[in-house]
């Protein structure tokens, strides 16, 4: 260290924002690593676009082989794009607080005067924006490769459904992040366990109307299920005939899910923080 520049006396006292300014600063700062990470680690193009495209292609070829209606090809491409969000929520949202703890960041997040909700929101927004690029890439590539035709009825409703589905989905991810932190080392196994069943019951590659009503209703707890169903109804001609519920009803349920998950995330996070501080789990392995 250079002694000649050691003095910090010439630096003024540090002004510090509080309240909503601090909240917004925290959200942006925590979103930053996710956004910049995408730019620096180009390997995602292979792992997050090329590999999911293989799954999409497999379903497309199956549907073509059995001469399914052409809109089914579009269903698969849209579903394939949306899997990117599910994987992001599962691996980069739900498990994230656990990884932050292992890395030593969680203690620093909690010790700072910011809100942990702002940290989670930053993680969610950063993940959402970064994943939107991946989803768009899959959608554009899939649409071009398999010549998907879209017939968008209402852009307004489409955007609203997408935003509501994302809000509810990432709200669920924020809630799961607190749960996974309490479950500690089992988080990894739970993520593994949840990945494939959700592919199935959310109808990523087929309309959930194919399920029994009660199975489809239960699957609707996962926001992507209804989001995907409503989006398919809004962008494909045969969509409404294959939809599970009407679009307005699905929008209403998505609004309710947004509220439940976001409020739940807030309370669960506060509970987790209290419990972790009481039991000493923020920085240590489970005792």
């Amino acid at each position, binding site marked *: 260290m250079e002694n000649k520049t050691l003095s910090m006396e010439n*630096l003024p006292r540090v002004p510090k924002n509080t309240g909503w300014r601090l909240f917004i600063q925290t959200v942006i700062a925590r979103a930053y690593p996710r956004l910049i990470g995408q730019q620096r680690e180009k390997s995602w193009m292979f792992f997050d676009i090329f590999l999911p495209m293989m799954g999409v292609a497999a379903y497309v070829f199956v549907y073509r082989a059995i001469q399914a209606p052409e809109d089914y090809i579009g269903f698969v491409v849209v579903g394939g794009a949306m899997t990117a969000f599910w994987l992001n929520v599962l691996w980069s949202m739900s498990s994230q607080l656990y990884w932050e703890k292992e890395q030593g960041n969680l203690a620093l997040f909690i010790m700072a005067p910011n809100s942990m909700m702002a940290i989670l929101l930053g993680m969610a927004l950063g993940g959402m924006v970064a994943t939107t690029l991946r989803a768009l890439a899959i959608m554009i590539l899939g649409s071009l490769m398999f010549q998907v035709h879209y017939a968008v009825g209402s852009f307004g409703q489409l955007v609203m459904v997408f935003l509501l589905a994302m809000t509810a989905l990432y709200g669920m991810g924020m809630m799961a992040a607190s749960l996974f932190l309490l479950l500690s080392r089992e988080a990894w196994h739970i993520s593994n366990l949840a990945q494939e069943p959700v592919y199935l019951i959310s109808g990523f590659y087929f309309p959930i109307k194919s399920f029994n009503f009660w199975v489809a209703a239960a699957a609707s707890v996962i926001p992507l299920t209804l989001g995907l169903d409503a989006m398919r109804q809004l962008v494909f001609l045969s969509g409404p005939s294959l939809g599970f519920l009407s679009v307005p009803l699905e929008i209403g349920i998505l609004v309710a899910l947004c509220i439940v998950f976001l409020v739940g995330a807030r309370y669960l996070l506060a509970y987790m923080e209290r419990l972790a501080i009481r039991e*000493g789990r923020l920085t240590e392995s489970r005792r």
Partner: protein
Amino acid sequence: MDFAIHTQNIGRIYKIRGGKKSEPKELVALHDVDLQVQRGELFGLLGPNGAGKTTLIKILTTLLGPSSGLATVAGFDVVKEPEKVRARINMVSGGESSGYGLLTVRENLWMFSQFYGIPTPVANARIKHLLEVVGLQDRANAKSSDLSTGLRQKMNIVRGFMTDPDVLFLDEPTLGLDVGASREVRHFIRSWVDENPSRTLLLTTHYMVEADELCDRVAIINQGRVLACDSPTNLKRHLQQEAIFRLEVSPLNGLGVEAFQNLTGVHKVTHSPQDGFAVLQFILAEEQALAAVVNVMAANNIRILNLQKCEPTLEDVFVYLVGQSMEEVERSGE
């Protein structure tokens, strides 16, 4: 009096879960700790690994709840008013790997500055200045994953000082650093406190020299209890009447330190086996007691390789209080 840190009977018990059928066991990490640290003080917590230093720091930084007692930092209760405490503190731990490897040093520091609400232009100016202070300006745009342990620790130190806290906690800040880097970090820490009397710094260390060189006052802690608390000079003054000898001898070949401990005039003995020889440290009531020690060695064919009379150090104070050296305590803990 207005203390920067004040604890009253702070205790912390961890419940350790056993098997499915066994009852959880209790581990007392802290036992009725009373400390008063004045504003502007550089205060040291000195003790072996597992003594309770880090547990106490976690309580004071609101990361861990105490099982009993009260603690205030910067005038605010750590349990009832954690938000007010958090706005006034920061912490750096030795060997921490915080931040994100994908981000550059500057980006990581900027991110953490935002969590404290520092406006970006101010944060950037402070980051630039502090990186120059620690000699890391050339690596500002390097990914933090590319930094060596020493450089990463310097980045962590900038993170801690960047927010200009009222009370800064440094938990083993020189852990893993080489001798030169440790000296630089110590110099920087001392200067930071000296520059502004409103700044308070609590440092934990198990390096005696570090505590001796840096701290205005030191609390010696072992097994969750504070055994003594005073300035390093005053602590060492307690041993001015004794004679302290350090002997390098041939291996003891099964002879226990009890053979020396029972001699008249021998207060404490520590034994540290080395590669091919052993180091014995004696705290004697008076110099004459050394003759009996040498006689025991001669009778057991132990050769004296080196003999040195020492000035008392904090290590000797620790031995005097605990009956074992820190190294011995850590070994027995393992």
